[in-house]
């Protein structure tokens, strides 16, 4: 073999090692071989510079990090399905399964997951429907909510009314507060004496500070309001 041929072979062999010289995983003997060659070979020295730049550029490129927890949960689900299949089928757990139609298991799992999702959705809709039926998300002062004991009149007073004025009006109408005010400012009033509710109601309605008053007992005028 001629000297030129040996040099050519050495050049090709060393050139092939350059990437691992760059990433520093090359063995000591090969590293010395590359060191010796690049001292005398300009093309390899140039290539080394290119590969170093390529390596540094790749290393410097930003990498995204992902949270593995959700992926791990899905892996567990697959393993559960695999084990369930193994316990019901001939393949023992932890052994490779040579299933000729692996998509069947996944299809069954997908259908089961969809069925569960549909059931959950239906249950959620039912709960929402029931919730709407039993307790509306709005209310009025005439709603048939449970009445406080003794309530005969519901009334709304001016927000500027003082405690003294309120007490005076209630004394005059022979009423007392049994509940309220609600969020809407409604008071439930009970009668203090034998005065009919209609008479108390009429007395209340004489005052400008009474914005609204109605009887809660089924009297002919109980539905009227101020």
């Amino acid at each position, binding site marked *: 073999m001629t000297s030129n041929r040996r040099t050519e072979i050495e050049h090709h062999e060393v*050139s*092939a*090692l350059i*990437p*691992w010289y*760059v*990433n520093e*995983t*090359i063995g000591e003997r090969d590293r010395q071989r590359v060191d010796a060659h690049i001292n005398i070979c300009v093309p390899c020295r*140039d*290539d080394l*510079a*290119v*590969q170093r*730049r*390529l*390596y540094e*550029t*790749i*290393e*410097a*490129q930003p*990498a*995204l*990090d*992902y949270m*593995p927890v959700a*992926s*791990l949960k*899905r*892996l*567990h689900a*697959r*393993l559960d399905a*695999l084990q369930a299949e193994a316990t019901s089928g001939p393949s023992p*757990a*932890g*052994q*490779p*399964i040579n299933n000729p139609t692996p998509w069947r298991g996944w299809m069954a799992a997908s259908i089961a997951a969809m069925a569960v999702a549909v059931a959950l959705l239906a249950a959620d809709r039912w709960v929402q429907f029931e919730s709407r039926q039993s307790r509306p998300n709005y209310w009025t002062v005439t709603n048939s909510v449970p009445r406080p004991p003794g309530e005969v009149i519901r009334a709304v007073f001016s927000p500027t009314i003082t405690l003294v004025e309120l007490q005076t009006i209630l004394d005059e109408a022979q009423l007392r507060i049994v509940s309220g005010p609600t969020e809407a400012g409604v008071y439930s009033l009970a009668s203090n004496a034998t005065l009919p509710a209609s008479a108390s109601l009429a007395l209340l309605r004489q005052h400008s500070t009474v914005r609204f008053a109605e009887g809660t007992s089924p009297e002919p005028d109980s539905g009227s309001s101020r």
Partner: protein
Amino acid sequence: MILPAKNSPKERDSALLAAIGAGDRRALEELYLSYHRRLARFLSRFTPRYENIEEIINDTFMVVWQNAKEFRNASQVSTWIIGIAYRTALKSFRRQKNHAVASLEDYPEQTVDPTSQTEVSDWLKHGLNRLPIEQRLTLELAYHMGHSLEEIATITDCPVGTVKARMFHAREKLRQYLPTLSGGPSDLPARIG
């Protein structure tokens, strides 16, 4: 499964794999968490979609779970796992017949100055996406993952000569395509065929 802190990563991986072979799901979880970041970063260089990345990683660990018993320490556990991930990824990328098309769409014809230093990274992505997948994987295993020649031969289940040849062709094509890497603004990038 909690292993003593004094164990080296290799010993720890071997112990975890032995436990997995015995059906220990906690050991699988530990191994999964210790490899997820590395694999996800590597795979994200080939596909921007996390669902693809997750599928490859989870497929890899399904194989790890099923074959842990068969591991005979012929290589490091890390090399074995990355080898499984390599084959899984290769199948996945080949299955996605639109992979090459998607790559081209992701990196449309450049209109930037290819000699600009700031564009080297973009040009590199462009060039890497045009390499045949085996060449690209070989180059990434060396330059992104930092694997030795012998490790890559084990991972890819190829002779060392094949790894060298793939790397040689990848370098040649990138050099042709990325003149800025050589520091010379002489030529416009040529197409990789």
